[in-house]
């Protein structure tokens, strides 16, 4: 077992569907440490880029290479989708589900579920059906369920896009905590404030092409391209 499946190396990778290039060609190396945000207008290809990195979007060309054997790398990544997918089970069973897929003993899985429920303030809801939770609770549950297998890297696709300020803050704290524990995070967002608060580096994507990939401070202080400047100043980019 390798220590971490990072760095991630993407080389000349594209996703085309029905003759249209959605993303690419992309060349990118994600280092072992960091909190990356992917920003760009709607339809720019943020979701597709994340899915492509995670390996759930078929590549039309190029390669996405993790550091480790193929059989191992998928189990050490986790993905939180834009609208959280709640299994029709209790909160507890949602949390234990990824663990029960592996060889974790049942009592151990339940213990971890309770620990996580405590951390996301859902301890009293453990027996409640996950599908009746509020939007913020669902997203916290989805993140906890993603973190419970202790991934090396966590992908999040606009995790706070439907949430109010309080829920957003809770989720940001959760993510910061995970980052401090050494989990590599890559998150798309169109909330610039959130990107500034969390990111150590920024990927700026427009029409499927990566226009900038730079440290967060540099990106927000002195964006290198006109498109990024326009986007940061609030102009509408087609």
């Amino acid at each position, binding site marked *: 077992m390798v220590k971490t499946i990072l760095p991630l190396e993407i080389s000349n990778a594209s996703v085309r569907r029905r003759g249209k290039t959605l993303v690419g060609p992309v060349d990118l190396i994600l280092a072992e440490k960091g909190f990356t945000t992917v920003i760009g207008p709607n339809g720019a290809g943020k979701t597709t880029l994340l899915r492509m990195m*995670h390996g759930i979007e078929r590549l039309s060309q190029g390669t996405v290479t993790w550091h480790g054997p193929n059989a191992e790398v998928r189990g050490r990544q986790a993905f939180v989708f834009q609208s959280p997918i709640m299994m*029709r*089970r209790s909160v507890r069973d949602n949390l234990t589900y990824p663990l029960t*897929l592996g060889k974790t003993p049942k009592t151990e899985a339940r213990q971890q579920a309770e620990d996580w429920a405590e951390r996301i303030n859902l301890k009293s809801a453990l027996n*409640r059906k996950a599908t009746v939770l509020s939007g913020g609770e669902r997203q916290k549950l989805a993140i906890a369920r993603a973190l419970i297998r202790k991934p090396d890297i966590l992908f999040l696709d606009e995790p706070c896009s439907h949430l109010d300020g309080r829920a957003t803050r809770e989720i940001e704290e959760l993510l910061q905590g995970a980052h401090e524990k050494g989990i590599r995070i890559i998150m798309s967002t169109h909330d610039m404030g959130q990107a500034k608060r969390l990111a150590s580096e920024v990927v700026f994507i427009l029409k499927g092409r990566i226009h900038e990939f730079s440290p967060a401070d540099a990106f927000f202080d002195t964006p290198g391209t006109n498109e990024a400047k326009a986007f940061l100043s609030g102009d509408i980019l087609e």
Partner: protein
Amino acid sequence: MTELFEGLKAAFLLLVRLDADLVEITLRSLQVTLSALVIASAIALPLGAILAVRRFRFRRATIAVLNALMGLPPVVVGLCVYVMFSRSGPFGVLGLLFTPTAMIIAQVIIIVPLIASIAHQSLRDLWAEYHDLLISLNTTQRQRIATLLWDGRRALLTASLAGFGRAIGEVGAIMVVGGNIDHATRVLTTAIALETGKGNFALALGLGFILIALAIAVNFAIHWLTRTEVEGRW
């Protein structure tokens, strides 16, 4: 109208007397249909899940065939089973013709397409909901199927109940393969057909009311069982 009333009276009398013949054929009806239901569900529910999850070459064709088979005339199924199990047929040596086993086989063939079709429809929706998550978690085909069957169990129960409803009321196929033999293969539906033929309308109606009551009772029992589960767990 008087016949309906006579029928109700006959049903009532049969019930209060706990008529031995009535008890026997009612139990046989239940035994045959519940056996067929268990076997058919064991085949059809996983089949529905596989059709929802896997992309194989003849998937669409399989679904089309399954939907077509739902409309299969039971009496033709009975005839085919008869030919297969008659003395000169390929399974003749088993000596199953005119036994409850043959009736169970015919009913299984009749309700598998129905249960599988309904199961497939609801599991397909559930799969659309779960797809990204289960792919992301790198689940095996087996884990995906098990997850759908478990999380979709309420809808699957409805599918099975539809199968039960069809099987308990079925008469054509089991008449052909069972032969309606007294104390051997007579069930409620074949007894009703027999009594009607003999002109015993009151008795036939009485048996009919008992059949309806049975079907409703089983439905209620199963719904009640799942309701308690819902309240207990959530």
